[in-house]
């Protein structure tokens, strides 16, 4: 699967108003009621990269327990994508902004 290929597939509840959000500077049409995780993964293959390994990550538990779905705001705040609802204008990054982190790989 290419990183640009959507990971999640919408099977129901597709008749909802759209909400524009911004991911890495690009506008993405989410649906009202989407979690940030779903909004991103119905458009892309991952949410972030692991700080400790080479691989892209796309969340794991979806119930706010594993913390694998952290994304960043431009201020450097973390958002847990699985329990963050989208709102118009929400702008997130898949990489931390200008904060070098030692990568183990």
């Amino acid at each position, binding site marked *: 699967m290419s990183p640009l290929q959507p990971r999640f597939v919408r*099977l129901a509840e597709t*008749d909802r108003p759209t909400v524009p959000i911004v991911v890495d500077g690009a506008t993405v049409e989410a649906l009202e009621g989407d979690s940030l995780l779903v909004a991103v993964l119905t458009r892309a293959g991952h949410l972030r990269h692991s700080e400790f390994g080479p691989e892209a990550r796309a969340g794991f538990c979806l119930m*706010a327990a594993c913390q694998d779905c952290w994304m960043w705001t431009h201020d450097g705040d973390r958002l847990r994508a699985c329990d963050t609802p989208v709102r118009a204008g929400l702008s997130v990054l898949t990489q931390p902004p200008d904060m070098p982190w030692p990568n183990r*790989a």
Partner: protein
Amino acid sequence: MAEPRVIIVGAGPAGVRAAETLVAAGLRPTVVDEGRRDGGQIYRRQPEGFARSSAELYGTEAARAEALHATFDDLRPKIDYRPGHLAWNVADGHLHVVHDGSAEALPFDALIVASGATDRLMPVKGWQHAGVYSLGAAQIALKSQGCAIGRRVVFLGTGPLMQLVAAQYRKAGAQVVALLDTSRLWNQIRALPKLVSRPDVLAKGVGLAASHLLAGTMVRRGVTPVEIFGDADGGVSGVSVRLASGRDLRLACDAVALGYHLRPETQLADLARCDFAFDAATRQFWPVIDEDGRSSVPGIYLAGDGVRTQGADGAEIAGKLAALAVLTDRGRSAPTEQISRLRQQRRAMERFRAGIAEAFPWPHHLAAGLADDTVVCRCEGITAGELRSVVHDKGADEMNRAKALSRVGMGRCQGRYCGHAAAEVVAAATQLSPAVVGRLRGQAPVKPLAIRTRRAAP
């Protein structure tokens, strides 16, 4: 005497029934829940504006889900409901919560912890790839967001949740490639004497298993997981297992739902200094409770899947019992008939729970066979080999020491998803029982907090 201050953590089946029982006795409990809406995970309510019916969302449990939601809607004006609040510590008679970046310590006379469960995981090589999700996650994606976790989904693991979620996926139109189950049919057959304690639930389970066969879905029992294939950028591309026959099976897929039944979220009980004991049948440590949910610490009560995996119906009973225990302990007269009826129902739930544990056993033997390069800690990418090396080279034969030296269990999930398997890896490496290796101690905060979390304005 002033009205006792009672806090309930969790607004799932146990928490809601506990709140209902306390309100009926004239109390106004505080209900702290991390979720934005009530229902917990099992009866999770979909966001506003979603249109699916209860029958679509909850299947055979629709009536129970609706009843629980209706009860909670009625309770709302009669309780201090705190949605979106993370309970992150218990100390000195206070529950510490954080909401929207601001922290508060709530004093209590009695605390009912109904914190629910998370998936119990055994690592498999490649499980760190994007597109591998817990079984619970696969269900939440569908139930709460109307999505499948991928186009072609393999279910790998064991337990009733795997049977259920695979059926829900198929019904919703997802492509279920296969159910690869580590348990064997004879595990289920041998558990029948216990499982008949809830004949209706047993019948539903048999129906689910049959539905996979009728639909022509590939089901393999007695498998040994070998590897989840994939690459760093693109994520999952396939799964391989060794079949019971000894033959290898490799399947292409772009998502894996992985899980081995559930484990209780016991961190708050631990921080409250409750005693724990090892359960040999499921090979995990549980808080010690009496038949009503009293812990070893006065004033701390434990209910629902956060202490014993009895499922939603069991949780409703446990929530009521815990609340009645609070009332009794605070000097209210005990409704003895109701308590004895609930205890009797709970014994059936407990017998069924033990049956499920036998029917879908935790495959602890897989830990010894994990290749050294298998990631055990997904958070920080720490391998089975690195964990074994602190056992062999540094004598770390106790779980918290192994954690300190290897960092397995120290990452952002705080050992929720690696802790049980890591204990099995250490147990296998030392030839000790996991009862001796011990368990990861709960640490505050039970989930990461932002450095700039501030004290709430009084």
